[in-house]
């Protein structure tokens, strides 16, 4: 099956074509069958490939499946070829599996939307591009997927384009991502310039010949990381992600939580061979990740929109993944990426279920006491929250604990302290969300009648809840041989050339686990105290530190700062260029040239007399000139 792995993106592509071209003609039921069905086929195929890969002999791994020669020009050659190795398999499973569940969920969530087929065609197209992104065997093909998912993200954020805020958010996402893409593209150019190829295998093989910390590798990895900060919403380019919540909630779950935003993490992990050769870049990655994790978590403390809380939590969790990459724990980053895909998709879909039941209400201040009205949603959301807070034995516990542990042992005690503080805040704001939504008094409007969602929505939720619970068991630390995930991924990941192999005692590891759980516990306790026991407490706290509250409530005024320092000057500059430089200088030159050419055209046209003898004369003159030219030598 691996030889036909190119079928994986082809299935959703067919779905996209059917829904996109015939969407208006076929019935809604057909759309509901084709949209999720095509992704389901992909998922089944990926499972088959995964099974086959596990049974391949070691020397046959990894598999590169050549599809066709894409571009050949001089020495430059880019193939359309797919790389099947542990890393891409993990990503494929996550993308197609979670994608499949979210497609099913969408059938219920989007059921009454007039653009039903359009929605599914975009969603299918997104899956196609995401699969290409993770399967590509070279940077250029990866970039194709990278841009493709960006396009789909733009289309889906602005899906309700008749809403001004939605189309604005789409544009913002697109523009901010462009900045990151520029960095990525620059990185690709530098890679081709340096290595003479864009193929992953060849680039990574050559990377070892460079000295550790060489300038060119540092610049390349930094450029790539700029790309990653755009796509994965890290400082300074994270501002688009919270706004992206304007899209339909399943889109937020699929694109802005589970898959697309993790592309940056995947890319950094894929290029681990380059990053380990560039310590400075590693530090930059770690610090940016840490800062993002902390800052986004703090913003999440004060948000009232249920999706925005989750959005900031996503930014924050992505920060953790980059922190892991930065300290060299690439496997931990991918592990967290996977578990995060489960529980964050779950949380988003759960919040979607809440919003669905509340007739579109997103403000948590107008919810409360939904526990009995929506028991399934409540239960799965609680599972997701426990997972993200890092409570044993839920999936998030294993992955987040590993990141914190690696931050301490391979990084710096400061990293660990700040990351733990972030984890505490995570636990706090997530339980705040649960308490505000499901507990307390009902604060909803009298015309709202909350109800549980239909099975087509709750079944994916339940499956994701199960995955969020048991998903962590593939990577149990401590016991030799139980960390299956680690062993499986090892061939795809380069390791930092460690001067000394430190072995930590088991007690130390267990102790650190307890500490991180304790930290989460504190967060949960504070949330409980503030939102269940003493509901008047939040107001008091806010009143006590009004400056700080305003600062985080307004997201550190980052959007405003960007507006003032970047957007406005560029706008003014472009207005100047448009009115002065363009319309006067450029247009003048262009119009001048055009009028000269126009006049010339009229002159030449005169030669075209229509008399055949004149044409013959033209030929004769040509003959005379040519023979004269040759006879004269």
């Amino acid at each position, binding site marked *: 099956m691996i030889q036909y792995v190119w079928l994986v993106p082809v299935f959703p592509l067919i779905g996209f074509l059917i829904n996109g071209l015939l969407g208006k003609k076929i019935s809604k039921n057909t759309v509901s069958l084709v949209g999720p069905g095509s992704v389901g086929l992909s998922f089944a195929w990926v499972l088959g490939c995964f099974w086959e890969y596990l049974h391949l002999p070691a020397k046959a791994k990894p598999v590169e499946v050549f599809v*066709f020669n894409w571009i*050949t020009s001089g020495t430059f050659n880019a193939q359309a070829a797919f790389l099947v190795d542990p890393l891409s398999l993990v990503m494929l499973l996550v993308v197609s599996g979670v994608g499949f569940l979210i497609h099913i969920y969408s059938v219920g969530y989007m059921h009454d939307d007039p653009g039903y087929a359009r929605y599914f065609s975009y969603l299918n197209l997104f899956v196609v591009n995401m699969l290409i992104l993770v399967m590509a065997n070279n940077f250029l093909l990866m970039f194709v997927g990278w841009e493709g998912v960006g396009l789909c993200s733009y289309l889906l954020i602005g899906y309700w384009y008749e809403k001004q805020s939605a189309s604005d958010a789409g544009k913002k996402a697109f523009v901010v991502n462009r900045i990151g893409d520029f960095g990525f593209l620059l990185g690709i150019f530098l890679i081709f310039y340096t290595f003479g190829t864009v193929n992953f295998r060849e680039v990574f093989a050559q990377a070892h010949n460079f000295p550790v910390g060489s300038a060119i590798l540092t610049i390349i990895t930094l450029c790539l990381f700029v790309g990653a900060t755009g796509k994965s919403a890290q400082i300074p380019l994270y501002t688009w992600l919270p706004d992206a919540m304007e899209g339909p909630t399943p889109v937020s779950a699929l694109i802005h939580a589970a898959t697309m935003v993790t592309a940056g993490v995947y890319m950094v992990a894929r290029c681990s061979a380059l990053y380990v050769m560039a310590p400075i870049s590693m530090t930059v990655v770690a610090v940016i990740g840490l800062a993002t994790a902390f800052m986004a978590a703090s913003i999440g403390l004060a948000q009232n929109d249920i999706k925005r809380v989750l959005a900031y939590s996503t930014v924050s969790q992505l920060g953790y993944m980059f922190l892991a990459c930065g300290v060299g724990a690439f496997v931990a980053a991918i592990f967290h990426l996977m578990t995060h895909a489960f529980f964050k998709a779950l949380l988003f879909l759960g919040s979607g279920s809440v919003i669905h039941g509340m007739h579109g209400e997103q403000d948590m201040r107008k919810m409360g006491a939904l526990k009995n009205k929506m028991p399934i949603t409540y239960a799965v959301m609680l599972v997701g929250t426990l997972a993200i807070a890092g409570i044993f034995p839920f999936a998030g516990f294993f992955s987040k604990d590993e990141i914190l542990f690696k931050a301490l042992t391979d990084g710096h005690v400061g990293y660990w302290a700040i990351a733990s503080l972030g984890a505490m805040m995570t636990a706090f704001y997530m339980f705040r969300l649960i308490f505000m939504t499901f507990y307390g008094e009902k604060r909803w409007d009298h015309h709202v009648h909350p109800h549980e969602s239909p099975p087509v929505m709750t079944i994916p939720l339940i499956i994701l809840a199960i995955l969020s619970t048991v998903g962590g068991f593939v990577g149990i630390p401590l016991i030799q041989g139980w960390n299956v995930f680690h062993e499986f991924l090892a061939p795809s990941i380069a390791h930092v050339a460690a001067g000394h192999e430190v072995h930590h005692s088991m007690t130390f590891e267990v102790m650190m686990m307890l500490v991180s759980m304790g930290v989460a516990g504190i967060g949960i306790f504070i949330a409980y105290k503030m939102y269940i026991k003493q509901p008047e407490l939040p107001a008091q706290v806010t009143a006590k530190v009004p400056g700080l509250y305003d600062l985080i409530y307004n997201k550190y005024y980052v959007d405003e700062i960007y507006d003032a320092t970047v957007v406005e000057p560029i706008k003014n500059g472009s207005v100047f260029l448009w009115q002065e430089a363009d319309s006067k200088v450029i247009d003048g030159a262009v119009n001048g040239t055009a009028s000269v050419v126009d006049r010339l055209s009229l002159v*030449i046209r005169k030669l075209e007399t229509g008399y055949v003898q004149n044409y013959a004369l033209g030929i004769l003159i040509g003959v005379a000139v040519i023979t004269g030219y040759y006879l004269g030598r």
Partner: protein
Amino acid sequence: MSIDIPTICLTNIGPLITLSVAGLLLLLFDAFSGKAMKKAHFHQFSLVAVVIALLQTVWLWNRQTTDFSRMIYVDNFSFFFNVIFLLGTGISIILSVHYLENYRKNYGEYYALMLFAAVGMILMAAGGNLVIIFLGVEILSIPIYILSGLFREDLKSNEAALKYLLLGAFSSAFLLFGIAMLYGGTGTFYLADLAAFIKKSGMNGFTYVGMGLLIVGFGFKVSMAPFHMWTPDVYEGAPTSITAFMSVGTKAAAFAAFLRVFLEVFPTVRMEWDLLLWVAAVATMTVGNVTALAQTNIKRMLAYSSIAHAGYILVGLIAGNQLGATGILYYLLAYTIMNLGAFGVVIAVARKKDNYLNIYDYAGLGFQYPGLAAVMSVFLFSLVGMPPTAGFLGKFYLFSAAVEAGYIWLVIIAVINSLISVYYYLRITVIMYMQPAEADLGPVAMTPVVNATLIISALAVLLIGIFPGSIFQLAMNSVKIFGS
């Protein structure tokens, strides 16, 4: 006296036999069959012949030999061109059917002549002997003379046929004279022997003049300046389906022969012809593009655009290296598809009796017939040479070949010319989408087959533009015979 009977292998010229026999049969059917079976079946019959010839070509692929006493080359170069010719012929046939019915001219001869013209093209690409190439030129030209005058009642059509015949005969004479001169100078008609002679003994007066006259002869067929002047008049007057056919077929065939002769016979004396072609290419591009700006009749505009494209392709010939030859093959394939597509839209929009040929007749097309306007835009963008279309990569290959060979200024001029061409191509797009229709466009009759052809052509233009790899490989494989 004993005569050596050559051993021949008929499968080597399978496509030629298929097309010739099909053409002859069509003539007989047309003359003797009853009225009932007629009209509907001629084009189907000829299409089947084209498809069979195409399959034969594919089956022959990678065969590398000569046949008929070295008169015919059997190699990938000619096969690649066969595919171009057969695609061009096939698409032209599909586009013709409805058009001819409107004029009540759906004759069997029409298709037979098209098949004969295709035979001529194939001979031009496969000829290993100057006489065969000349034969190909004539077999191609005579049917086209007749076809351009198909509308006997129409003065313009008559004018086109007569002009083309007179000037074509005039230039054929030069071609023939050039061939005679080369024979006079070297004593052979065989390309391989000519090449060997020139490599060994260099050029002499006869070969110089012969080469010059070959440039005249081929230059006329590809509409190279200053031998281009027939093009607009003939293209405008001829039936649109024939304009489409000859704009791609004749040009591709002439370039096939041009390329084969100059890269096989005269590569060692490149210095003797590159300057001449340099000047001609610059003149061709400039005249084509600049004059196209002032045209309001879309057929005339496309005629000038086809002159300009001949100029671009000459750039690849001047480069004279492998990449240049590869680029020409790729470009001609792309050009065949995109130009036929554009003409297909022109035929559809012009409707009955060519009433709507002014570019302003396209106003509002984008709103009333969004599909038609969309495919037209694809073809126009490709003719401009914008990524990600096939036209872009074709130009890219041609121009980078010239840069590689050191003709920087030529490429700069070519790029400036491409920029000029943006104006008149995109003007159509602008008119289609940004100007309201002055009156209701009325019904545009589209048959499913034509629809499918146009859509597939548009997709093909995009597809080989985005994924040029395999086509490029095939083209590169085809020009390996020119060892340089």
